[in-house]
C-alpha cells in the first residue's frame, strides 16, 4: 500500500528526470489528486505551467468529440526545447462512458510522442483495462484524522481565525478524509466568527437542508402533489440532477432517522436503482422521479406509514 508521501516522492523523481509515463490518480474525493497533478505541473514548468497543461473535466466537457478537438489543437502547437512534453489533465475521468474511454485510449496513443495524460478518477475500476495498463496507477488514500486537523489548524493560523479544538474534530467527522470538504466547511464556519461546534453544525445544516428527506416523507404520507412540487423546486433552484437526488434518497432510506420497516427499505432501494437505470438510458429526470414518488405513495399506503 502506498500513501501520499510515497506518491509525492515518486512524482518528484519524474520532475528530476523530466520524463514520466501516463498517470492515473485514483482515490476518494478530497485526497489531493488534482492538487498533486497541478503541483507536478508547476514543478515541471514553473510559472508558465498553464501554457503546457490542458485541464479538462470529463463531467463538464460533454462527449469525446469536444475532448478530441481540444486535445488535438493543444498538442499540435510547438514545444520549446527545454520542455520535454505537454500534459493533458483529465479530471473525473471515471464519468466517461466505456465508448468515450476507448476513443480516449486512441488519443493517448496518437499523441504519445509529445503529450502525457494524467487521468484522475474516484473509482479506478470504472476505467477500462487498456487505459489502466497504459498508465502508472497511483492510489490516494483518505487523509488521517491528525493530518486533516493539522492542516485545518495551519489554515486558521494563516487566516488568523480563532477556533475551539473540538470544532475541528467535528469538521473531520463530517468530512471524513475529504480535505476539500473540510476546508470548505471551515471557511464557511470562519465567516461566522469564532469557530465552535455549534457554528460548524449551523453551517452544515444551512448548506444541506434535509429537503430530500422531507420529500420522501411527504410521498410516503400520500401527499404526492406537494412532494412533486418540492422536488421540482429542489432540482430547478439548486441545479441538482436526477441522479444527484436519487443518490441522496438512497442514503436517506437507510437512515435510522427514517423509521421504516426493514423490508420496505430494500424494496425502495431496488426501485431507486431501477429509476436510476432508466435515467441513465436517457429518460427525463422529472418524470422518472415523479414515478418514484408515486411508488413511494403506494408503498406508504400498503405498509400504513405515518411519518
Amino acid at each position, binding site marked *: 500500500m502506498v500513501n501520499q508521501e510515497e506518491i509525492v516522492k515518486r512524482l518528484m523523481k519524474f520532475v528530476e528526470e523530466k520524463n514520466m509515463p501516463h498517470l492515473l490518480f485514483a482515490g476518494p474525493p478530497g485526497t*489531493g489528486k488534482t492538487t498533486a497533478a*497541478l503541483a507536478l505541473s508547476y514543478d515541471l514548468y514553473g510559472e508558465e505551467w498553464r501554457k503546457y497543461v490542458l485541464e479538462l473535466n470529463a463531467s463538464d466537457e460533454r462527449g469525446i468529440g469536444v475532448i478530441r478537438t481540444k486535445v488535438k489543437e493543444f498538442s499540435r502547437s510547438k514545444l520549446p526545447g527545454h520542455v520535454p512534453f505537454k500534459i493533458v489533465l483529465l479530471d473525473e475521468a471515471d464519468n466517461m462512458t466505456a465508448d468515450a474511454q476507448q476513443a480516449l485510449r486512441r488519443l493517448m496513443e496518437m499523441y504519445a510522442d509529445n503529450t502525457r495524460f494524467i487521468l484522475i478518477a474516484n473509482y479506478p475500476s470504472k476505467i477500462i483495462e487498456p487505459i489502466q495498463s497504459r498508465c502508472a496507477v497511483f492510489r490516494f488514500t483518505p487523509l488521517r484524522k491528525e493530518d486533516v486537523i493539522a492542516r485545518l489548524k495551519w489554515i486558521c493560523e494563516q487566516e488568523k481565525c480563532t477556533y475551539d479544538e473540538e470544532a475541528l474534530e467535528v469538521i473531520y467527522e463530517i468530512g471524513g478524509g475529504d480535505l476539500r470538504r473540510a476546508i470548505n466547511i471551515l471557511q464557511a464556519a470562519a465567516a461566522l466568527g469564532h469557530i465552535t461546534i455549534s457554528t460548524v453544525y449551523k453551517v452544515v445544516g444551512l*448548506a444541506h437542508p434535509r429537503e430530500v428527506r422531507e420529500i420522501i416523507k411527504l410521498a410516503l404520507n400520500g401527499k*404526492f402533489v406537494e412532494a412533486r412540487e418540492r422536488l421540482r423546486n429542489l432540482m430547478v433552484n439548486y441545479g*441538482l440532477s436526477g441522479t444527484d437526488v436519487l443518490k441522496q434518497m438512497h442514503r436517506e432510506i437507510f437512515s435510522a432517522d427514517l423509521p421504516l420497516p426493514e423490508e420496505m427499505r430494500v424494496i425502495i432501494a431496488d426501485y431507486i436503482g431501477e429509476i436510476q437505470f*432508466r435515467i441513465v*438510458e436517457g429518460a427525463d429526470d*422529472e*418524470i422518472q422521479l415523479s414515478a418514484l414518488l408515486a411508488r413511494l405513495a*403506494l408503498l406508504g399506503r400498503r405498509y400504513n406509514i405515518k411519518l
Partner: protein
Amino acid sequence: MSSSPRRVPWVVKYRPKRIAEVVNQDEAKSKFVSWLKSWPNVKKKAALLYGPPGCGKTSLVEAAANEFGYDVLEMNASDFRRASDIERIAMRASRASTLFGKRGRIILLDEVDGISGREDVGGLEAVLRLVRNTNNPVVMTANDPWDPALRPLRGNAELIEFKRLSKRDVVRVLRRICEAENIICEDDALNYIAEKSEGDLRSAINDLEALAIGFRRVTLDVAKTLLRPRDREHNPFETLRNMFSAKYCWQAKISLSQSQLDYEQAMLWIHENLPNQYTDVEDLWRAYEALSRADVYLGRIVRSGDWDLLAYAVDLMTAGVAMAAQNNPRDKYRWTKYSFPQKLLLMARTRETRAVRDDLASIIASHLHVSTTTAKNDVIPLLKIIFTLNPKYAAKLALGLKLSEKMIEFLAGPNKTLVMRYLEELKRKQSEVARKAEEHYVPRKESGENAEEGSKVKHRATRKKGGGLLSYIGKSKQ
C-alpha cells in the same frame, strides 16, 4: 400620398422617428440613451437589447439614431453567419466615419440569438472581435439572451431589458394608426387584434393592415373570421379530457393524433395533470409507471436514432395512462381543472437566475479545479452562507473571484447592497495602494496582485508559489 400605388407597409410607415414615440419601455430607453450619449466612455462598447418580438428594440435604435444624428449599419441574423461578412461591415463602418467626419455610425446586429453556437462558431467569434475592437457603438438585439451560446456576448455587452407590451399599449398604437389612415374600427375588434398579438406590436399592426386593406371598416366579426388560427385541432385541455376518458385503447391513442400537442408537450401535460385526475394512489402509480416507460422509449429513440420506437412510447403514454384507473374507474370521467405544465413556467421564470448560477459555477470550477457539478452541490451552498452572514468577508471573495453584480445578488440575496458597498471600498483601497506604490517607485511584485483574493484561492496561489510538490508533502505532515 397614402393613395399612391406603391404602398409602404404600415410597420415601416409608422415606425417611431423620435425616442419619445417608442411605446412604453421607459427604463430601457433611459438606459440605452445614457449609454449611447457617453459612448465611447462606457464600460462596455456594445449593448444587447433583449425582449419578446415586436416590443420596440429595433425601433428604439432607429429612433435614437435619427434623433442624435447617427447612421445605422444593419446586419441581420442570416448575414452574419460568416466571419468575413462581419469583418467587412466593421471595416466599412470605420472607413465611413473617417470619410464623413462627424456623423457617427451605429452597427446594428439584429437577432443575434439566430447565430447558433454549433454551426456558426466563426460568426460568433467574429462578433466578439467586433465588439471588443469597435470604433462605433455596436447594438445587438435578441429575444432570448440566456441562450448558453450567447454567454460570451452577454459578458461583453450592456444588457438592456425590454418588457412585453401590454394589451393597452398595443390598442393605443392601433387606434392612432386607424385615425391616421381614416379607418373605422370597432373597439372590440382592436381589442381582439391586440389580445391575439400577445404584446407583439409588429404582428398586431400587420394584422390590422391586412384587415383594413379590403374593408376600410373593421368589425369584430371580420377580425374573428380572418384572424382565427387555421388549425382545428384539439387544444391541450380537450386532448387531456379525451385521453383520460377513453374506454378503449384506440380512443386514447387517437386523442393524441388529433391534438395540437406534439408527443413531447403531451408528455408534460399528462405528467402535470395525472395527480389531479386520479385520486387512488395505486391508480396513480400505475399511470406513472406507464408514463415512465414511455419516457424510457423516448430516451432510446434519442440514443439509437430509431424513430420506429415512437409508436411504443405513444401507446404507453396514452393508452397506458388511460387504462390505469382500475381501483377508481370513475376517476376517468371526473371533471378536472387541467393546468399548464408548471415545469415550463418555473423554467421560464428562473431562466435568468439559472444562467447566473451556471456562470458562477464555471468560475468556481476553474478556480478550484473541480467540475461545475461539484461547484453547484458543494461550494455554492457554503458561499451562500458566507454571503448572507458575513458581507465584509463576502466582498473579499467577490473581489478575488471577480464576481458580477448579478452573481453577488444570487449569493447574498437581500444582503447584496451591503456586500456591494464593501466591495467598492475594497476596490478603492486597492487602487490607492497601487497609486502609492507607483509614487514610491516600488517595483510591483507578481504576488501582490493576488494578496487580497479569497482565502481558498490564496492557498492555492501561495502553495504554487512555494514550489509545488515539496510544500505538498508539508501539507500532510504538518
